[in-house]
Each structure stands twice: as C-alpha cells, then as structure tokens.
C-alpha cells in the first residue's frame, strides 16, 4: 500500500489565481482527499449595511467582486426593488441586461486567458485578454468604468446609451466573434490543450445535482440550470436555451464558456434590435420594509441577494451568496482521484472567486 502524504496547496501558488488553501491527501501522485480552507480575505462587506444607506450600499455590493461587479450591483438593486415594489422602466432593464452580458463575455475571456496561462500557453493567454480589452473599452465608453461601473442604482440605471451607439456596439461584437472563433479553435482543437482538459476532473450529472453545483460547472455536467430563464430583466423578452454539455470534464467546462460567449453576443444583438425608448430609471420614494430574495446568473453561476428592511434608510440585513460558494463542494469532489499535476487545472475550471465567496 502506498504511503499517504498531505501536501498543502495555496493560498499562494504560482498557478492559483485565488487565495484558497487545500490540504491534498495524496497516494503516489493521486489525490485521495482534498480539504478546502478559505477565510483569508473575509472583509465583512455584508455588515456594512449598518453604516451605509440602502441607496449607497450598491457601491459596497459592487465591490464584492472585481470581475462580475455589475451583476452584484444589479442583484442588490433587484432585491431592494422587489422589497419596495419598484418597477424599473423597460429601457433601464434592457441596458442592465446588455451590461450584464458584456460582463459575462469579459469574464469568460478573462477565464480563458487564465486557463491558457495555467497550462503554460502564453500566447493564447495574451490573445484572450487582447479580445477582452475591446469589451472593456465598450464598458468604459458606455459607463465610465472598466471593471466597477457604478451605473446601476435602485430604480434603474444612471446612464443612457444612444440607440446609434448600441448599434455600433453590436457591430463591434460581431467583429469580435470572428476573432474569437479563431481563438476558440485553439482551445477546442489543439492537441496539447485537449491533452490537459479531456477526461480530467469529471463531474457526472448526478453528482452535479447532488452537490448543488451552479453555473458553467453544472451545465458542463448536463444540468440545464440558468437563472436567466426565470425571466428577470430583459431576459423575459428573449427565447433561449441554456448552454449544456454532458461530458462533465474540464474540456466540457471550457466548451460551455466558449459557447456562452457566442450566446451573449447573440443576446446583446437581439436586445439592441428591440431596444425600447423611454425612461431609464424611476424616482425612489420611502425605504424598504419587507424582505426579498433575488437571484442572478453571474458568469460563474447562480447568486443570491437577500435584503431585509425595517422602514429606515438602513437595511436590517443584506446577504450575498455567490456562485463559488456553491461550487466548492463540487470542486472537492472532482479533486478526489485526480493526478496531482491536474489540481491547478481542476481548480481553474470551476472559475473560483474567493473574494466573492468570503465577501
């Protein structure tokens, strides 16, 4: 029988983008158990509701994450708007949906770059981030910010984008599609890339359901879960199916994210073509006094935003549950039985965001 050894992995490691620690119990080169530890960057952001008015709290919630910050801001606003019975004008909802889908594209491109960097394909990493840069430029031009936009507010959005500019954005994205197709062919067809991803870290459909996995992690294992289908924002006006793969390995998770970039470009084009005119926000009167659970489909999966009001300007409770929180158990499961050398790839393919998880 082989000797068991415990290898501490993280929170600082050259191929680990996030501060998570794992105690890897290994036999020879195989991982037999992985015990995760987080807690290095808990910032107590939820507790700031005691010191920030509900209209200001959106800035705090946006800072839960530096990648999917817009979605967090929108999720928070959605929860407070549900709490107060506020109906956001249609144009405001369309703009929110467009910015959210742009965030998904840049997040997936960022992830693809990190993945390429993880397996040592530097030029692929740079090309992924070069394309992402174009999306960040669109965000900067329309919101003023590249990562944290602060364009979402309770009641709607702060900035309008002209219909001409929106058409221009749809054209730019159409151009990106061509470049992205060249890039995605390398991710999906290159021998050395496939060698690192195919058959690695398999999570079956039953396991994904049992472990309550969310986002691309669940969809790559054949679970068709996509919270955009609950009809919030402008998604209720669109007809689309979640991107699902069934192999459940690292390659399938990569494929889901690549296909979702195309899907997001398509969604934006359809929204631009049917963009309604009118107001972008409504005035907010009073303060929240009830409770409301809102959900978003962030680039990494389903996120929860639970607000409890007490009739004052300060919320009693604001809870954010991020997708990585729910994917840690699935990650632990996929690590069991994998080769030690595949651990970084496996962790990367859940696209972890520990900053989100700890808040």
């Amino acid at each position, binding site marked *: 029988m082989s000797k068991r050894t415990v290898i501490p992995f993280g929170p600082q490691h050259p191929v680990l983008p996030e501060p998570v620690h794992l105690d890897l119990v290994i036999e020879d080169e195989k991982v037999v158990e992985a015990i995760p530890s987080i807690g290095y960057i808990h910032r107590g952001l939820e507790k700031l509701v005691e010191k920030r008015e509900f209209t200001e709290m959106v800035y705090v919630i946006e800072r839960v994450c530096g990648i999917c910050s817009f979605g967090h801001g929108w999720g928070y606003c959605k929860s407070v708007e549900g709490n107060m019975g506020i109906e956001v004008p249609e144009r405001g909802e369309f703009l929110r949906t467009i910015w959210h889908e742009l965030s998904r594209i840049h997040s997936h491109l960022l992830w693809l770059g990190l993945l390429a960097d993880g397996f040592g394909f530097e030029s692929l990493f740079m090309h992924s981030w070069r394309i992402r840069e174009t999306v960040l430029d669109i965000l900067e031009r329309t919101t003023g910010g590249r990562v944290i936009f602060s364009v979402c507010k309770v009641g709607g959005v702060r900035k309008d984008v002209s219909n001409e500019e929106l058409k221009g954005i749809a054209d730019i994205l159409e151009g990106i599609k061509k470049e992205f197709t060249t890039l995605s062919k390398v991710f999906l067809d290159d021998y050395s890339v496939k060698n690192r991803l195919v058959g690695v870290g398999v999570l079956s459909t039953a396991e994904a359901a049992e472990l309550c996995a969310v986002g691309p992690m669940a969809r790559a294992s054949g679970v068709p879960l996509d919270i955009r289908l609950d009809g919030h924002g402008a998604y*209720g006006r669109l007809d689309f199916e979640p991107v699902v793969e069934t192999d459940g390995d690292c390659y399938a998770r990569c494929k889901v994210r690549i296909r979702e970039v195309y899907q997001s470009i398509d969604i934006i084009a359809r929204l631009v073509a049917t963009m309604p005119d009118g107001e972008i926000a409504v005035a907010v009167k009073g303060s929240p006094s009830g409770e409301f659970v809102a959900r978003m489909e962030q680039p990494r999966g389903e996120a929860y935003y639970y607000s*409890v009001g007490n009739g004052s300007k300060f919320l009693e409770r604001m*809870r954010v*549950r991020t997708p990585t929180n729910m994917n*840690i158990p699935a990650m632990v499961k996929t690590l069991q039985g994998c080769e030690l050398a595949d651990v970084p790839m496996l962790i990367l393919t859940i696209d972890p965001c520990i900053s989100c998880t*700890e808040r």
Partner: protein
Amino acid sequence: MAEGKHLIQKIVPVAVGDILNAVQDLKGDGYRLGQMCASKVKDEFQILYSFDKDYELMNLKAVVGEGAELPSITGIYWPAFIYENEIRDLFGFKFKNLALDYGGHFFKTAIPTPWNPQAAKEGGEDE
C-alpha cells in the same frame, strides 16, 4: 422561459424541531439547496433556507433563540457545510451532526462572531 418566476417569494415559517423533516421533504420533492443564512432582525435571530425547483424559490425560515444548537442539514444536503460553518463563525450558532466541522475556523474574523458578540462571550469561542 419561465417569465415572472423571479417575483414569486415563498417564505414558510418552520420550527427548529421540524427543520430536518421539512428539508428532507423538499429534497424528496426534487428541490435543490440554494443557500442558507442567518440574520439578526430587530432582537431576533432567523435562519433562512432557500431551495429551488424549476426556477421557483421556496424558503424556510426558522426563528432561533440566542445560543441555540441547530440540527445540521448536511446529512440531507452535504454542501450545506459551507453555510453552517459560516453561520457558526459569524453568528455563533452551533450545528449538531455537522458533516465537516471547521470548529469555528472557517472564516478568520478580527472579532469572534461579529454579528452576535454575545455568543462568543458565552460560548468561549476559540480564537
């Protein structure tokens, strides 16, 4: 497309003693665990369990007394260990039969159980 489902809010009160049965029933009905959290609303502590099926939310809410020990649902939904350890670290509630217990060391906070400092004084939480 399940239009309008995001507006449906079902929040069902549940007694602490009935949590396990209620959660077991939901699992039997095909619900997926979405999240768990504790809240301090006025002077009362509440635990909210959120479940999802076909994009419809179902929430169970239990009102708990200070320092109460709660039944762990990790025997039914193993991933709940993430939430139960978080609640223990931030609110000081302990869970009976927790499948993966970090013993109060899941999150590292400057002060123990920041949402409920009283629990740290009474329970003598480890630093």
